[in-house]
């Protein structure tokens, strides 16, 4: 016998608070597809993806219907192409991207991640070829997402890689100038990238993962925000300790949804269940915002003094609740602050409450990084690299994941709007105070050595 409260509060979360499973991501290993012949490699990839993912969307929808919880996105994450396709040239890498795109369309998923390289310690030939191919690959395909891991606490920061990625981002933006630099919205540069992230653009299937795996990304910023609002209305004397507890319990509930759905999808597909990534991931829909949570906790807007403390509390409470709710937690698992994908955050940036310096501070306590940040179109590659370097340093020193998904919007300047569409939303371009001051530093190149934090034995 269920209680009224159990039934009604669950329905409330679903109907008015945007509770859903944000993504079910099928990881597909492509290491057994490798070949010196890139055409053969492409055929093998295509066949393997179709073989494993043919029923993904249908199964997700069936399981979603059964429990009344929609699975909003179905995605695929493959092995890092720079490794699986190491013999490929840059041109051949573009061909591989096209094949991945074709496969994604065939199985009706919206994004396929894994066009990736891991260069935290240095470049192998496949890495160079992939990185060179990124601008073309991301402009001639729709659904492919790319990521490059340029730093880790164990290896330090590959500053040559960071320099190269600044240039790559500029090239990618130019190639998609008519779409406001859209290619860059599908590209992330990472420090300490997790190998089982179900969210894009960082999703890839790492070495050491099984041949196929289901990873789930839950969401629910609206649920958290509504829980806080209701509680504060009922008891205005609630302090941060008790609010933190409330967020933790809410995160538990949201994560349980992901666990249940993910496990059943995995079982029906005959594939192991990997992890639940319990990140609070917003969308441009009204009421589905992380930024609003800041307001519910007494800040006028995200970005004002107090924001870093709030985000630290939020991120931690979400992790605690989620960890108890799931047998296996992984991916990012925290709060996202994507500037374009969250109406409220986007507005806060537009109104000037959220500067790039504050965004950077926030990334030291949240789970992703500088995400979907639109920059002036004439930002030099070295400055982009320097922004990335700062992010890498925060991640490396603090033994956490950080990332940069930066979009220099060709032809537009600070204050202008960029439109990416769909889940990627739209963003106001953020001003940069010192556009031309970091070139000499970036040109030094080399590797910033691993910090002492990396010596943990």
């Amino acid at each position, binding site marked *: 016998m*269920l209680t*009224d409260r*159990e*039934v*009604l509060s669950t329905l409330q979360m679903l*109907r008015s608070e945007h509770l859903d499973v944000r993504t079910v991501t099928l990881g597909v290993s492509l290491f057994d597809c490798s070949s010196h012949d890139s055409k053969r490699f492409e055929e093998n990839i295509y066949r393997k993806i179709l073989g494993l993912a043919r029923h993904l969307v249908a199964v997700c929808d069936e399981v979603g219907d059964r429990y*009344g*919880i929609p699975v909003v996105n179905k995605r695929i994450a493959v092995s890092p192409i720079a490794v699986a396709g190491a013999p490929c040239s840059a041109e051949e890498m573009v061909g591989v991207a096209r094949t991945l795109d074709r496969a994604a369309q065939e199985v009706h998923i919206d994004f396929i991640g894994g066009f990736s390289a891991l260069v935290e310690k240095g470049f192998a030939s496949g890495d160079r070829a992939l990185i060179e191919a990124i601008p073309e690959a991301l402009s001639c395909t729709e659904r492919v997402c790319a990521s490059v891991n340029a730093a880790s606490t164990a290896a330090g920061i590959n500053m040559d890689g960071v320099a190269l990625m600044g240039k790559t981002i500029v090239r990618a933006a130019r190639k998609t100038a008519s779409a406001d630099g859209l290619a860059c919205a599908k590209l992330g540069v990472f420090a300490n990238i997790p190998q089982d992230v179900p969210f894009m653009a960082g999703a890839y299937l790492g070495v050491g993962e099984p041949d196929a795996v289901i990873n789930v990304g839950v969401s629910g910023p609206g649920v958290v925000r509504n829980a806080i609002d209701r509680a504060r209305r009922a008891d205005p004397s609630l302090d941060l300790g008790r609010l933190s507890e409330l967020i933790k319990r809410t995160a538990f509930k949201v994560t349980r949804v992901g666990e*249940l759905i993910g496990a059943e999808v995995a079982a029906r597909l005959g594939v192991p269940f990997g992890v639940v990534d319990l990140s609070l991931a917003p969308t441009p829909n009204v009421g589905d915002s992380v930024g609003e949570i800041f307001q519910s906790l007494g800040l006028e807007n995200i970005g004002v003094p107090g924001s870093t403390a709030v985000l630290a509390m939020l991120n931690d409470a979400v992790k605690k609740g989620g960890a108890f709710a799931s047998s296996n937690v992984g991916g990012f698992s925290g709060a996202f602050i994507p500037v374009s994908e969250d109406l409220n955050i986007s507005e806060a940036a537009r109104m000037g409450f959220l500067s790039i310096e504050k965004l950077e501070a926030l990334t030291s306590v949240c789970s992703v990084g500088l995400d979907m940040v639109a920059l002036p179109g004439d930002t030099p590659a070295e400055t982009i690299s320097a922004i990335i370097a700062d992010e890498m340093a925060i991640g490396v020193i603090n033994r956490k994941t950080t990332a940069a998904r930066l979009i220099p919007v060709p032809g537009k300047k600070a204050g202008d709007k960029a439109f990416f569409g769909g889940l990627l939303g739209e963003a106001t371009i953020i001003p940069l105070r010192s556009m031309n001051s970091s070139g000499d530093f970036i040109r030094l190149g080399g590797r910033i050595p691993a910090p002492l934090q990396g010596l943990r034995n």
Partner: protein
Amino acid sequence: MEKFVLSILGTDRPGIVAAVSRVLADLCCNVEDVSQTILQDEFVGIVIASVPDAISADVLRAGMGKALDSLRLHVAVKKLEKSGPPRPRPVCEPFVIVTTGPDKVGLVAGVTEVLADFGVNITQLKAAFRGGDDPHRNTMIYEVDVPVETDQQAFRERLRGKAAELDLELSLQHRDIFEAVHRI
């Protein structure tokens, strides 16, 4: 010993179960199973009791009547027939149907007609919210057993169609989701 089932109906107040069980005890009957519900101000209870052979249904009724009339309770007594082999029941899965919408005649009849057509049995049914300030928010919760052989698609569509006819919002979800979210 024979088994009897008694149903008790009346305005709720302290002392009802005490009065009924006193009569049963005085007649050497053993209460084997009991359940009660209070709806608005009315008490409804069911008792299954094992009764010595010497006591007939009439004797039970008379005993109840004497003790309970002053409490204005109606009691119905029925002997449970010896059951034969248990009726084969199909393997079922537990689902929860919630309907929300303005109250009017025919809501329960309409929804349950679809359930009956598909051989779906209701295990628990209640009005969770009687509208209060907002007559459009009348909510009913049906916990049901759906045979695994049921055509889920057809069942869902029939329910949806019926809900549209009755101007109701309707959800159909497997029960596990509610337990997963709220219970450890």
